[in-house]
């Protein structure tokens, strides 16, 4: 049975610290667009920690919600792409093939979660910052769409190792950069096809819910509700 990669986000553990955001930049060669472009809201954060205020001072609450590509099984972004740049892989990942992308940006419009980002310019890394670039991840050229891949480079690396060692992947062996950096362990990643895996166990939790479930996009990210004291 093929793997089916999924993630759970425990909103009761998440403290909104933002480590995942920086870790994602570090792992995936996401360009820093700079203040001028950031002011035009062209900053690219494959994962973002949304925060929502509730109520007014002094009875005020704040919700954090990390949002990355939900890797939907019925992803609205996939069918609208005329060149198959966005399509579904055998392991249920929502793949984005930069080389095929011609930049219609249709996928981004169709995505209800706004987790797709566009390279408005060729990225720049003033030397020697370029030495940090992760050689396992392609750098995107101007005019293509990019988004969270669940750190597919880590997944395939682990799979190749496991294959070489003629063994099954262990649960928790693969950690996307965001999961790895999360010190509160709010993010859990694993194989949803393995009923024993931590991620399967958690996504079965009664606290679990999908983001914009009603749209029928069948996301593979489950959000575990933050508990409130009575």
């Amino acid at each position, binding site marked *: 049975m093929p793997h089916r990669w999924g993630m759970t986000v425990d909103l009761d553990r998440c403290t909104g610290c933002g480590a995942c955001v920086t870790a994602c930049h570090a792992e995936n060669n996401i360009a*820093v667009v700079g203040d001028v472009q950031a002011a035009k809201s062209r900053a690219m954060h494959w994962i973002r920690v949304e925060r929502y205020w*509730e109520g007014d001072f002094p009875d005020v609450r704040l919700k954090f919600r990390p949002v990355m590509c939900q890797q939907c099984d019925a992803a609205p972004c996939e069918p609208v792409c005329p060149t198959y740049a966005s399509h579904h892989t055998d392991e249920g990942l929502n*793949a984005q093939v930069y080389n095929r992308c011609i930049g219609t940006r249709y996928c981004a419009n169709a995505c209800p979660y706004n987790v797709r980002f566009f390279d408005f310019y060729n990225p720049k890394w003033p030397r020697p910052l370029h030495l940090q670039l992760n050689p396992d991840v392609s750098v995107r050229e101007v005019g293509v769409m990019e988004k969270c891949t669940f750190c*597919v480079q880590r997944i395939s690396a682990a799979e190749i190792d496991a294959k070489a060692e003629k063994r099954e992947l262990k649960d928790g062996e693969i950690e996307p950069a965001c999961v790895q950096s999360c010190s509160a362990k709010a993010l859990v990643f694993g194989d949803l096809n393995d009923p024993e895996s931590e991620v399967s166990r958690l996504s079965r939790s009664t606290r679990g819910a999908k983001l914009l479930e009603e749209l029928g996009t069948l996301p593979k990210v489950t959000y575990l509700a933050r508990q409130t004291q009575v």
Partner: protein
Amino acid sequence: MDRRDFIKLTAVTGAGATLASCGNPEHQLIRFVPDDDIVPGIAEFKPSVCPLCRAGCGLSVRVMDADVETVRNGQAGVVKMMVAKKLEGDPKNPISRGGLCPRGQAAIQITYHPDRLTHPMKRTGARGTGEYKEVTWDEAIAELTGQLNALADAKDQKSLVLLARPRRSRRLELFAEFLSRFGAPAPIGFELFAEDVLRRANAVSFGHEQLPTFDLARAHYVLAFGADFLGTWNSPVSQNAGYGVMRQGRQASGGTRARFVHVEPRMSLTAASADEFVPVKPGTEGVLALGLAHIILRNKLRPADAAGRAGAAIDGWSGGLQDFKPENVEKITGVSALRIERLAHELVEFRPSVAMIGGAPLAHTNGLFNALAVNALNGLLGAVDQPGGVFFTPGVGRSPATPHRPPATAPQSGADAGLAVKVMLIDDANSVFASPKAWKVREALDTVPFIASFGSFLDETSLYADLILPDHSFLETWVDSQPESGALDAVSTVAGPAMKPLHNTRSTPDVVIEIAGKLKSPVALPWKSYEEMLKAPVGSRESAASHQPPATAVKYQPPRFDGDAAGFPFHFLPYASQAFLDGSTAHLPWLQEMPDPLTSGMWSSWIEINPRTAERLGVALGDIVDITSSQGTLQAPVVVFPGIAEDVVAMPVGQGHENFTRYASKRGVNPIGILAPLTESETGALAWAATRVKITRAGGNDGRLILFAGEMRENPFEGRRQER
């Protein structure tokens, strides 16, 4: 594998040529033979230590080969080198436990920073102009040695001052050793959010002059006073790990979810995660703590003597804190008596419970009282050295650095010692940026005849240096850390270089050792090199406990504020920004572009104002306001912030660098600049939360404020249809 499979594969892996490796002139350059044999494309993981804050998280550095442009005996070329690619928390490290904070993730950019200083430099222009010329290491070291010799000749060794960040590290021990053997005063530790008040309080209450460690993983009830322990305070990564467990980590094993109450006038990142947010008047946190203690004592929920010396340190403890009846406390703190009653009962009911205090509450004129009050409460709750309580990491020596006392940051600090500073060494401390103008640090620096800096970047302070001997980055050299908190057991992390140096820099400890040996009358240090020092076993260190000031009972003094409430109606609350801490990481582009967790601000600074206040002042999101204190005026855009009291305005520290690399220079404003030079009455630490300001609208939204988020609320138009 045929072409289609290949395409499928690339489709999955997203592999492809990286731009970085094409379009560069590399192929024209000569390829040098690598020094060590390298397996291309295979990643290694090497240990290191995060240098950014005192938490000292252990790192595991992903290292891979890359083509590095270098110059070898005059010939430019490229050489294959193993270089750091990514920083992860070291799973085996008891502090980071495999996790890392956003700042730590970005630390790697220090090594690769385009504006990093790559070679020794001597000042050519006037001080502060940043005009330097490259010199060789021999020249640089000779220069510094000469200066020290001059002092020695004049029998004036006392007027050598070393300004460093106060860390528990052998690096600082080495400096201290050198200074004392040379005959100079101990290093001056300078850091804005130094938490010296808390160390003192812990020494008084518990006999440990160090920051506390909280056993959150086992705590059932956490009451935090202003401590941003999930964001920037103390040892954030380990505290986040503990927090995760205390919330959802215990259910599997039949445990329960801990409760968490946060007390502060402005909802911080940490308070956002609290079950209950208790706004309180600034500087009255201690009163609330004692109010809670009073109820516990009154109702005999806990034995009074449980508090031990921590209680004894509080005036009127034995008498049951009669001055802190709920009604009085309500008057002082603004927290309702009923609520106080409830919280007090919960504290006892849900034991093990623990209280913590840090940050702003200690940055008032009565900071020490606030700290002692909370310590006493912890004592009363029996939370000290108990599972789910507060611990003190053992085996932590006293910081070799004497905490600065104003105007000690200013080198005429010498003044108290009764002599002027002639030579000043700066190790990565930026006192100019992080001191109120009133301290006149610049002026003081100007009076110092000779200043040498070991920093890797030109910042406001090192700009005053006559000589710059840039250090290796932490990834290129031996590093160590002995965190004073964050783990229940003693931690001492030592790591070798993760990669070879990129530039013509030298490890500062080794430079100091070399200079020590080169002096006319050499200073004999027990180590040939820093590496040797780190490899030597840590000698039995005098325990911090032995250094404890006599415990004298303290009374509550209302906090004093600079500026009268009439003229300056708002409390001004600078806070450590999640991205930049005290501003020392503002030069890292990833952190500049990381949206602030609460406001989503990027690349800019702002002032947070309560919605009703904003309405009253006639300002909206992005409008520009003047923030005026008795010390001066700042201009910043407004962020309407539902989580802040109406009489408080808050501002993140970190932006507003005049000169700190291309990414941070001339960006935003620095709230520290307009702080009044009030100090904590007992310890003399800067009371950075004791300034009042007035706000006046200065103009409309000029795009200065850069936000990532669109809306503040999830459902902004709720109920709109009914209205129209």
